[in-house]
C-alpha cells in the first residue's frame, strides 16, 4: 500500500468519525477534540494504544464535555452545555475541519511519515493550545505517556496495512473497531431484521426474525434503499429494488457471512459480506470482507475491466468503509 493511500484512507476514516462526533453536539466544524475521539475509535495501533490505557469513547466524550464546561465556567457561563444527541452527519452537510485540526493531520504525513493514525495521534499530543493536554489529564494520563506508548507500539509492531483491495477479483477487506462487546455486535450482525441498521443498501427486511436459531441457507426478502438519509431520492432501477438476503456462513460470535442477490435481474452480480469478530480492549475488532461474484450471464471485456480497475478499487473501498461505519454508528 502506498504512502499516499495509507494517508488518504486514514484521513478519510478519521474525518468521518470526527465529523460524526461533531454532529452529535450540533457542530459542523470538527476540531482537535473530535479528532481525539476519532482516534479513540481507530482500528489502527493509535486506537489500540488509547484503549489499552482504559480510555473509552464514553470516558473521552465525558472528558471533552467536562473540559469545555470548565472553560465556560471560567468565563462565568455556568449553565452547562446543551444535551448531546445522536449522530446526524448523514442528514446534514457543510462539515469541515478547523484549521488547527487540519494542520495536525497534514503534519502527520510530512517529514517521511506515512500519515497513519499513530502519526496523527503523535502530532495531536503536541498541539499547542493545551486543550488536549487538559482533556488527557481528566482521563488520568498525559501527552508524554501517550507518546511513549505510541513509540513502544511502533517499535514492536511493524506497520501493516489494515485494508487490502483486489479490484481484479472485485473483493477487499478492512479492519474496524466497534465500541461494544462482542455479544452486542454479534446480536446486531446475526439478526436479519437489523441488517438495514448497518448495510447501507438495504432499507427493509420482510417479516420478523425467527424465534429460534437461523440456519445456513435461510433466505429473507429485502427492499433496496431508495432514499438517502438526507431525504434525497436515489435512482435505483426497478430490477434492483428487491434483494434476497441469505445466510451462507455462521460461527457463534466469531464469524458471519451474508449473501445479497437481485432476484429480478438476470445479469446482476452477487454480493457477499463476511465479518469476523474478535474481542478487543474496550470493544470488538472486526475483519470485514466484501466480494462481488460475477454473474455467469455477463460478458467479460478484459480491456474495459482493466480500465475500470481504479474505479472498482475505489468503489469496493467505499462500500467497506460504509459497512464499518454503519456497524460502528449503531453503538455510538
Amino acid at each position, binding site marked *: 500500500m502506498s504512502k499516499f493511500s495509507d494517508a488518504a484512507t486514514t484521513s478519510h476514516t478519521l474525518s468521518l468519525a470526527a465529523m460524526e462526533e461533531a454532529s452529535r453536539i450540533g457542530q*459542523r466544524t470538527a476540531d482537535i477534540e473530535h479528532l481525539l475521539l476519532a482516534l479513540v475509535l481507530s482500528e489502527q495501533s493509535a486506537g489500540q494504544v488509547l484503549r489499552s490505557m482504559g480510555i473509552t469513547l464514553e470516558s473521552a466524550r465525558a472528558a471533552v464535555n467536562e*473540559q469545555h464546561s470548565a*472553560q465556560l465556567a471560567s*468565563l*462565568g*457561563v455556568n449553565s452547562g452545555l*446543551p444535551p448531546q444527541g445522536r449522530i446526524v452527519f448523514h442528514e446534514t452537510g457543510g462539515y469541515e475541519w478547523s484549521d488547527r485540526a487540519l494542520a495536525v493531520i497534514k503534519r502527520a504525513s510530512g517529514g517521511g511519515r506515512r500519515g497513519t493514525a499513530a502519526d496523527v495521534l503523535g502530532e495531536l499530543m503536541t498541539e499547542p*493550545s493545551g486543550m488536549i493536554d487538559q482533556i488527557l489529564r481528566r482521563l488520568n494520563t498525559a501527552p508524554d505517556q501517550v507518546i511513549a506508548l505510541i513509540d513502544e507500539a511502533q517499535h514492536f509492531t511493524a506497520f501493516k496495512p489494515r485494508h487490502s483491495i483486489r479490484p481484479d477479483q472485485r473483493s477487499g477487506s478492512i479492519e474496524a473497531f466497534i465500541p461494544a462487546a462482542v455479544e452486542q455486535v454479534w446480536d446486531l450482525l446475526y439478526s436479519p431484521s437489523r441488517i438495514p441498521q448497518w448495510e447501507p443498501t438495504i432499507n427493509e427486511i420482510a417479516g420478523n426474525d425467527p424465534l429460534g436459531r437461523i440456519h445456513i441457507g435461510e433466505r429473507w426478502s429485502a427492499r433496496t434503499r431508495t432514499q438517502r438519509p438526507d*431525504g434525497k431520492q436515489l435512482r435505483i432501477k426497478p430490477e434492483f429494488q428487491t434483494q434476497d438476503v441469505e445466510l451462507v456462513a455462521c460461527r457463534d460470535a466469531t464469524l458471519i457471512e451474508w449473501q445479497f442477490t437481485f432476484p429480478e435481474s438476470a445479469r446482476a452480480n452477487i454480493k457477499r459480506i463476511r465479518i469476523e469478530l474478535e474481542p478487543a480492549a474496550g470493544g470488538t475488532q472486526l475483519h470485514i470482507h466484501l466480494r462481488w461474484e460475477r454473474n455467469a450471464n455477463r460478458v467479460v471485456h478484459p480491456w474495459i475491466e482493466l480500465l475500470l480497475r481504479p474505479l472498482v478499487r475505489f468503489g469496493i473501498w467505499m462500500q467497506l468503509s460504509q459497512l464499518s461505519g454503519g456497524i460502528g454508528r449503531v453503538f455510538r
Partner: protein
Amino acid sequence: MESTQITTVAADTSDPRSGLRAIASLRALTERLELAQVEAALRLGMSWQNIADALGVSRQAAHKKYAKKVDQTIPVARRAH
C-alpha cells in the same frame, strides 16, 4: 449569573492562556446554539429573510452559512428563500 457578573469574570485576564482556550469553547458554544436556533426557526416555518433579520445579517449571508448545515429532512417548502 447576572450578565454584569459574567463580563466581570470573563474580563479577568490574569491567566490569558486559559482565558483564550475558554473563548474558543465559548465560540464553539455560540456556533452550536446558533445552528440549533436556525433549525428550530426553519421547523416553525420561518423564512431565511426572517431568520436573517433576527440574526442581524443579510438573507444571503444566513442562507450561505446554514443552508447545507441544517437538517436536510426539514421540508423543502419551509426552507424556501
